[in-house]
């Protein structure tokens, strides 16, 4: 990896208070993101994968500074932005845009698409007023919607089209990084494929960098150059997309990949299914040692005693496991 990191999480930690108490130290906190180090490099798409409670969305929200970070740092293009105030953050706010799962809850239902898109242009005074109409048509064209869509309201569009409007709004800022949190998981498969292709096209045309957060591993494999797999607030494995999908090294990655139902009629064409025991533990009370130890089919004494750090393997990927395959 030669490109410089565009955004970096350095020992990033985010805790939520579950129960406050007036006795100091007796409140209960949940560590949703646990000292995560992760970088997204210029021009790449990093796929961030995990099941519910893995902390992937919380990490995305910390990186975009939608929520505050408890400890550690967010570094954007070499600058520490963790403690910047509203004014200092303005350039960052423009450079980093977010796309959400449910576009209907992030688009104001009472405003026309054209108004929704031109407001941020005016606030950030990106274009002189007379250039805005032309820019809006250009944005519609980029996301594959007709210019007539600008005069309509969000409810007049289908789910896939609304997601295109959400993408257009993010692009209006001419961002350098887009953080997309489950952007296609609410869409039907045939429409999902269209939007996945749009993400790929836009990356090429506008040389964008993506952090793509999703639970659907097929979608993540399709869009990502690199992937990171999270479990209970920690990154368990990260590396090149093909490296990881062709031969997962962490037992959790292996089980996760094997659990996906494959659309082929011939049972011989499937991976050997590893059915994990139990469920994801409560994030407020994670296991001692390796976080995956309660469900790992290969767990040993060392795994219960000591938490493994992310360490590089010969092929360049990082794995947090005491006994990775050699």
């Amino acid at each position, binding site marked *: 990896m030669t490109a410089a990191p565009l955004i970096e999480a350095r020992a990033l930690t985010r805790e939520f208070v579950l129960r406050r108490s007036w006795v100091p130290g007796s409140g209960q906190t949940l560590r949703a993101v646990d000292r995560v180090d992760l970088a997204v490099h210029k021009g790449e798409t990093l796929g961030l994968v995990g*099941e*519910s409670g893995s902390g992937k969305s919380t990490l995305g929200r910390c990186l975009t500074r939608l929520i505050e970070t408890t400890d550690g740092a967010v570094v954007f293009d070499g600058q520490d932005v963790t403690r910047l105030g509203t004014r200092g953050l303005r350039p960052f706010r423009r450079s980093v845009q977010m796309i959400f799962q449910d576009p209907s809850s992030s688009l104001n239902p009472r405003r026309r698409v054209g108004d929704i898109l031109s407001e941020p242009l005016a606030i950030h005074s990106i274009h002189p007023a007379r250039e805005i109409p032309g820019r809006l048509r250009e944005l519609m064209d980029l996301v594959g919607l007709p210019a007539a869509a600008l005069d309509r309201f969000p409810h007049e569009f*289908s789910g*896939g*089209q609304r997601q295109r409007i959400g993408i257009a709004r993010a692009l209006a800022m001419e961002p350098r990084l887009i953080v997309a949190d489950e952007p296609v998981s609410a869409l*039907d*498969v*045939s*429409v*999902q*494929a*269209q939007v*996945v*292709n749009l993400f*790929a096209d836009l990356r090429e045309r506008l040389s964008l960098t993506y952090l793509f957060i999703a*639970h659907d*591993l*097929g*979608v993540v*494999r*399709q869009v990502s150059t690199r992937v990171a797999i999270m479990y209970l607030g920690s990154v368990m494995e990260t590396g090149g*997309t093909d490296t990881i*999908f*062709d031969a997962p090294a962490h037992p959790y990655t292996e*089980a*996760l*990949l*094997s*659990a*996906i*139902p*494959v*659309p*082929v*009629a*011939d049972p011989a*064409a*499937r991976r050997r*299914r590893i*059915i*994990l025991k*139990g*469920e*994801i533990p409560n994030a407020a009370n994670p296991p001692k040692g390796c976080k995956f130890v309660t469900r790992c089919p290969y767990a040993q004494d060392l795994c219960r005693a000591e938490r493994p750090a992310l360490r590089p393997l010969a092929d360049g990927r990082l794995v947090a496991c005491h006994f990775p395959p050699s």
Partner: protein
Amino acid sequence: MSPLLDVRHLRVTFTTDGGPVTAVHDVSFAVQPGEVLAVVGESGSGKSVSLLSVLGLVDRRRTVVEGEATFRGEPILGLSERALRRIRGRDIALISQDPMTALTPVHRIGDQIAEQIRAHERVSRHAARDRTVALLRDVNIPMPERAVDRYPHELSGGMRQRAVIAMALSCNPALLVADEPTTALDTTVQAQVLDMLRRLSAQHGSSVVLITHDMGVVAEMATRVAVMYAGRIVETGTVAELFDDPWHPYTWGLLDSIPPLTGPRPRRLPSIAGMPPPPGRTEPGCPFAPRCRAAMPICRLPPPEQVAGGHRALCVLDAPTRAALRPPRVAA
């Protein structure tokens, strides 16, 4: 062997403020004893409505259900609510996507399952509780003796769905209708629940109708498949027929647009252009024609049915044309 459930020419029309809207057009299907029939389609395709209307689970005041349906040879459409209630739960059980539609938050899960057993069978409270514990053990809920006394909110989503499956199986139903039973679950938990559903339905000898949008789930669970689009079954066949030699261009699109997990990654995913027609559509031709890459002028007429044994498709394309348009794929 006569089918357990036989539905012929089902048509479901909703009364809306904008006039009547037909959600299901002339749908016929049968469920044989012991088989798993998957009904696949995207949102609004009519897959859930087709089943729910047969079970009398749609708002009767605002819905017109036409056609014929028999369960074990007896007509089931138009039965009174009272008569249906005797069948539902005992002979036919429903599992829905959200377990909280089946569980009430104010009672312990053990009491809810035991109540279901006692509503359909004459057994003592004590015996019903014993059976409940055994059922919870069957669905792999840890420490079932303690789990019976838990309230739904004390269980995770996966555990709640297991409890609902336990409740559904409590009266040994002949037919289990599972409407997106694992859609809300995480991947590793989905694998556990599907595995268990397959094992228990086989053990109880129940037939299953599995309503889903996930072709992966279909391939792993089903024996036969019906693909729905715009309120019609556009293709039906065995899992092997449908996945290895799909006939309908919509089925091609559904299968091809799934991003693969192995092998080369396509630069672009094949996708289906456009979107499904609005529900109120009345044109007589093929509903998929506006999005179909093989559409011809004749598609403006009602499509003919292609048939070979149990494999059927509502499409004008014959075998040689299909082979030219989408050559059969050889599994790697």
